């Protein structure tokens, strides 16, 4: 009985992240529009966009290979598995021990690997621009993320996300310098990985500013719907990660009651809304960087993460 209940909770979490991802993107777009004194599309417009794309005919380039057609499924499945492993409204879910934080990052790296390959598949120069810039950004963002994971793991004593979330929620964590550095570095990495301003513009189709959009330029119809869904899931994933690591209060403990789960879900929705609004405000307030300023920006994140890790190695009090 308990097994079935645990399984149901885990399943509910997986479906919850899938259902909420477009809403989060819709919220960010709506707030950005409002800040620009526009009315903006409705909160549920991304759902309608995905449905519209699903119903359209998919147009493939003549020389697109099987990899081009298979990649969207692989990307969305890797991203979904990674997003489902992050505690949202409850910690200690049934399969949370099967992949720790390093495995989650590596799953996102697989998704990115196939996306970059898909960009190279048709043999156009736009695809090449997108893929080459994406791997350059990833070559700095991913090590920064891993170093942040190290810092967190050294503080919490584990790389399991549930254990870290529990530790962060407990009073023994204190206000540590290395945590502060890890938070700043994580925000920078999250911006880079989700192709947000100041690293990439999610709303552009100008070659000068494209990274993610250039890789998916040749996609259409249901394939494009899957890729859009994957990038929405990725945004949700990173925001959930920041929320569960640095604002972990409100999450139901393992073997909690139904009331605790509902309270956790409400807290989670609130956190998503707050972070979505903050993201929209930040994107509106700042301009996009030059492409070759991005490695310095991400290099700064890597340095901050490395500093946090170094402080943990050097002394336990940091």
């Amino acid at each position, binding site marked *: 009985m308990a097994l079935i209940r645990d399984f149901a909770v885990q399943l509910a979490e997986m479906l919850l992240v899938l259902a909420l991802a477009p809403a989060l993107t819709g919220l960010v777009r709506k707030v950005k529009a409002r800040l620009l004194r526009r009315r903006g599309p409705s909160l549920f417009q991304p759902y309608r966009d995905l449905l519209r794309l699903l*119903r359209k005919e998919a147009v493939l380039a*003549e020389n697109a290979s099987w990899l081009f057609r298979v990649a969207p499924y692989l990307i969305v499945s890797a991203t979904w598995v990674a997003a489902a492993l992050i505690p949202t409204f409850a910690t200690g879910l049934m399969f949370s021990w099967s992949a*720790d934080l390093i495995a989650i990052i590596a799953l996102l790296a697989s998704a990115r690997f196939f996306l970059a390959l898909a960009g190279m598949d048709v043999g156009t120069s736009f695809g090449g621009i997108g893929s080459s810039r994406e791997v350059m950004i990833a*070559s700095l963002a991913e090590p920064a993320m891993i170093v942040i994971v190290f810092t967190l793991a050294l503080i919490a004593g584990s790389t399991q996300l549930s254990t870290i979330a529990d530790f962060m929620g407990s009073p023994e964590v204190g206000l540590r310098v290395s945590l502060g550095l890890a938070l700043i570095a994580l925000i920078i990495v999250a911006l880079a990985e989700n192709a947000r301003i100041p690293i990439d513009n999610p709303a552009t189709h100008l070659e000068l500013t494209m990274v993610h959009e250039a890789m998916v330029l040749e996609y259409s119809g249901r394939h494009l719907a899957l890729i859009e869904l994957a990038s929405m899931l990725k945004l949700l994933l990173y925001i959930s990660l920041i929320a569960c690591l640095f604002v972990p209060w409100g999450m139901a403990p393992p073997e909690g009651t139904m009331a605790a789960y509902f309270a956790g879900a409400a807290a989670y929705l609130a956190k998503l809304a707050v972070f979505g609004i903050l993201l929209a405000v930040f994107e509106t307030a700042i301009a996009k960087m030059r492409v*070759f300023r991005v490695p310095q920006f991400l290099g700064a994140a890597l340095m901050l993460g490395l500093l946090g890790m170094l402080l943990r190695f050097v002394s336990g009090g940091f």
Partner: protein
Amino acid sequence: MPVVIGLCCVAAFLAVSVLGVATSRSQAGTPLVYGICLAASAVALASALAQLLAGGTADSTLVLPLGLPWLGAHFRIDALAAFFLVVVNLGGFASSLFALGHGRHETAPHRVLPFYPAFLAGMNLVVLADDAFTFLLCWEFMSLSSWALVMAHHRDPENRRAGYIYLLMASFGTLALILAFGLLAGPDGGYGFAAIRASGHPGTLIAALVLVLVLLGAGSKAGLVPLHVWLPLAHPAAPSHVSALMSGVMTKVAVYGFIRIIFDLLGEPSWWSSMIVLALAGITTVLGVLYALMQHDLKRLLAYHTVENIGIIFIGLGLALAFRTDGMEWAAALAFTAALFHVFNHSLFKSLLFFGAGAVLNSTGERDMEKLGGLIHRMPLASFAFLVGCVAISALPPLNGFVSEWLTFQAILLSPELPEWGLKILIPTVGALLALSAALAGACFVKAFGVTFLGRPRSKHAEKALETDNFSLASMFLLAALCLLAGILPGFVIDALAPVTQSLVDGHMPVQSTLSWLMIIPVSESRSSYDGMLVFVFIALSALLSVYAIHRLASHKLRRAPAWDCGYPDPSPFTQYTASSFAQPIRRVFGAVVFGARERVEMPPPGDPSPAVLHVELRDPVWDWFYAPVAFAVNFAAERLNHLQFLTIRRYLMLVFVLLILLLLVAAIWL
């Protein structure tokens, strides 16, 4: 008993080598030689695997009356040797299978067939050897037979240069190892490994010298920076199945030599020896992958990438050394297991990738990525196997590369407990370098696969490529299947490695095969766990679910049309990204600092229809800072010493006289 089997297989290899001389010019030579090698490798593999899985049973030894009269030739298989024999013979098996198909296209079979079995024999013998003389003799035999294979296509001046440098570095490495063994054996000790172990711990100075010499000797064969320079010249020059063996297996034999001497024979190394190993390994990892990113020759890219993976293995070994000297045996076992797992993984996927490169070379005649492209349509099966190799080597779950990298990261996370200050600063840096190299490796293989197999063909050869033969495909798919298995069932591999770590660092990881759901737990469940099988199942399930959902909810219509390309499609295949252009952002970020990369564009004036030319200039810092001064100094000294050739008779007599006086003085003072 297993030793006898191993030696019989070696004898079979040597016999086939002689046979190869006789039959190489005939039609039947190739399948005969490779077929017998295949069978012998299979037998040796089975025997070594049985020995490894049997766990802590007694080692089998054998002494043959060959070699030095008072020493004989000792052979022994213990847990470490059994593991490395598995690696060597698995590589030999896959390579022979590949060569059954690939070898038909060989233009100079009389230069390859006799030496290939000799190479396999040499590698097996090095791992079997149990005394210093046999070890060194077989090491040299392995180097010479691989040199002969590198020089197989000796009409090409690049191959000749590669062979020359390889011979130089190999001889230098053997010299370093001879000195190391001399120091270990001591002034009156025996040369058998058992005698060296029994002679007790050498002093710190001797230990330090031995470490440096072994790093020079075994490290140069493995490919540690700065001794790696022969590797990217020699590995591509050899035929593809031999390149796979050299990169995937011979470098591991060098790692075996390092482990045998430092972990087994040396006893107690000092704490700073791990610092040297870690620092070198960290630099090797990052430099190797950066070099690989700058290449556009497919085989050279793979060879430089081997350098990076050797760095990862040595990071694990350095951590194991550090933990062992501080008495943390369980952490040492974790780090050591991570290193050995990576040895196994790398031999699998590097061989697979080299086989793919060989298949491409066979079908198109090109190694240069700038002339390939679109091969996924012409060679679908080979490209699928190559893709699996690319995913595995980029350390992506659920394949095997991720597991060994994950274990190495877990070992790094255990190291704040090490007390030494140098390690406290070095290990986070090495961890960041490892993470950086993992991300760059992904970039490198997106480039390798994307430029070679995807896109549109950039030359006639690429347009007309044909699928490779069945033997090559069989061996590639075998290796790809093993990559997947090792990724989703890592617990069994870790348990198989337990006797090796137990014998060398006195500790082993917790037993993995009894854990539920086939997960692996490196230290304890509360710390971290990973379940490769579950991750694979989850990904498969969610992929199937999305396919099903799309099938039900979405339109099924599909239409083929010319590429969109923002409305400006260009029919010429030269407008797509090349290998150099793909690497340009990374070259600009990292290459400017590390390689002094400079780009120069020659633009014709407006109105002139001639094409613009882009020059990219890279300087190899290791050649400039390390080898060029050494070569200069050697030349300088040689020139000065040359004057000794032209002395008069009186001067020669003076030399003899002076030396005699000196000798008598020394005798007077010290005796």
